[in-house]
């Protein structure tokens, strides 16, 4: 098992590298001279040339990329063109906030979405199940930024229960953003869990379990659940990416000082290092969550575990 994890970690590196390359290449095309932004009023031909040499901006593309990645592995994300402070500093300040919102959303989705999905899969033709299906359909179509606005209208403006922006009120300020961000995600998880459970319940081995006299609740919990988890786990893992995409919107709606808003500001100000830094960190998160999905897979399905030498050899 350990070998498996290490192997996957190593496999992750070229992927992250490749993503960094892609992002770097795209940002290469940003028009304009960075020295204009950095030097501002102090711009002159000479100063510009000197700065370019310093920052290595006059080097060919691949050399620049090489420098960038070597710096990256040391934790050096470069210098922001605007603040002239290390990008890493800003990321350290902002990223935890993003993580909190994302974690909140995931908790909400898995904690609420999975049980509802399981229950409506087991009680397939009930009113509850149909209701879940409808809510699920509506949920995946609801634009999260609109939902955020509506939630603010209801809970902050009208009811005055929850804050509408910032993270100053601690836990309370996380509730609305997590709800908004997690809505699509939860609806999706609900649907997938439900349909997966429906599939599994129809299987022959469930009938065998019942024929053995296994109690109804145990049939679901001990037999059906493990087998139905694969698609759900896939969705939970894959959608981390969607969550990170959505967090940009959520932070904008709720004015949360996180990586998402940093990214938008940096794009507007043509602050390429910061943009790169945000994107790279997000890509790393996604790669890590993919890895976790694979690990959990191996845990849940003994056939996969065996493939990676996890069982008794």
């Amino acid at each position, binding site marked *: 098992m350990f070998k498996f994890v290490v192997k996957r970690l190593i496999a992750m590196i070229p992927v992250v590298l490749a993503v960094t390359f892609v992002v770097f290449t795209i940002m290469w095309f940003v028009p304009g001279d960075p020295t204009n932004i950095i030097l501002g009023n102090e711009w002159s031909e000479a100063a510009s040339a000197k700065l370019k040499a310093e920052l290595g901006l006059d080097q060919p593309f691949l050399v620049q990329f090489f420098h960038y990645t070597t710096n990256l592995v040391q934790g050096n994300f470069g210098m922001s063109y605007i603040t002239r402070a290390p990008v890493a500093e800003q990321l350290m300040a902002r990223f935890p906030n993003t993580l909190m919102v994302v974690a909140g959303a995931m908790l909400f989705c898995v904690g609420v979405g999975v049980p509802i999905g399981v229950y409506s899969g087991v009680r397939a033709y009930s009113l509850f199940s149909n209701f879940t299906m409808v809510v699920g359909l509506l949920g995946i179509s609801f634009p999260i930024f609109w939902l955020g606005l509506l939630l603010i209208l209801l809970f902050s403006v009208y009811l005055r229960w929850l804050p509408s922006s910032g993270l100053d009120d601690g836990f309370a300020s996380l509730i609305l953003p997590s709800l908004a961000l997690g809505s699509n995600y939860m609806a999706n998880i609900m649907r997938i869990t439900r349909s997966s459970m429906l599939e599994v319940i129809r299987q022959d*081995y469930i009938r*065998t379990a019942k024929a*053995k006299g*296994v109690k*109804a609740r145990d049939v679901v919990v001990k037999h059906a659940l*493990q*087998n139905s988890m694969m698609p759900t786990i896939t969705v939970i893992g894959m959608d981390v990416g969607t969550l990170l995409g959505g967090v940009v919107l959520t932070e904008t709606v709720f004015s949360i000082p996180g990586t998402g808003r940093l990214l938008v500001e940096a794009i507007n100000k043509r602050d390429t290092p910061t943009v790169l830094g945000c994107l790279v960190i997000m890509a790393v998160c996604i790669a890590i969550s993919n890895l976790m999905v694979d690990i959990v897979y191996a845990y849940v399905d003994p*056939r996969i575990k065996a493939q990676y030498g996890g069982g008794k050899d």
Partner: protein
Amino acid sequence: MEIKKINEQENTLEIKNLVIHYISDEEVVKAVNGVNIIIKAGKTLGLVGETGAGKTTTALSILNLVPEPQGKILSGEVLLEGRSVLSMSEHELEVMRGDKVAMIFQDPMTSLNPVHTVGHQIAESIEIHRKVSKHQALKQAKEMLELVGIPSERSNEYPYQFSGGMKQRVDIAIALACSPDLLIADEPTTALDVTIQAQVLKLINELRQKYHMSMLMITHDLGIVAEVCDEVSIAYAGRIIEHGTLEDIFDHMRHPYTKGLFGALPDIGVRRSELMPIKGLMPDPTNLPSGCPFHPRCDYVMEVCSQSLPENKWLSETHCVECHLYKDTNESML
């Protein structure tokens, strides 16, 4: 496994006038249309019929596992050792299943849970019905494995590591783990190769003789019936159209369908004769013919056959048939 004491007088299983339909928005599948079955203690009944005759559905009703919500038991009684299965509560059913009656299903490839070890799946049955510790149950499970011819060291392995024949043996081990009074075997060898078939049949036969189990053997293979069964019921379109002892059916068959079944078998002695299949196809259970369901295919069809269902006629103490041909027969004519 314990060897049970059987009350020779009691019937292990009695099914009376069972009617089960599958009802969906688009159509009604009339799977079982008035089935009567009696299995005496310690005896084996062969339930013979082609696919779609309603055999599996009848078997599932004994465990009250007919798939809901489409499957509806419209009328009839199922009495297991005198107790009505259809009126039991969920809890009572859970106690009964696996302990008093157990079932071996048709397809061994899909009837085992892929994420549990085989040892665990056998032990689960024991844990539920006998108040023993997990450790004890696992020990007994290993014994069951040996009993069905699988080395007990393999109890930690997963179903995907076994072949079809071995999976079927695991199924048998699960079914027999708590020494049920009635074993239902639903075409247990159909999905296996011929050589494995013979092995599995032999195993089932040995075990049921050793432990005095009653058995319902569902099959479409008359060879298996000859080897294993004491009595035979022939099923067609959800009805039992003929029933009798092995001798009654094999040597004195009466119903045209039964005759057709035997006629369709190749006779090794007379190599040059033609195979005589029964003309036509099994009727569509959503659209059954009027009167006797076999009449469109029957060589002896009469006008009355399309108009009314034949009544059950007892030709001897053990042999009965549902056919208009024998309406006015009495014993002396045979």
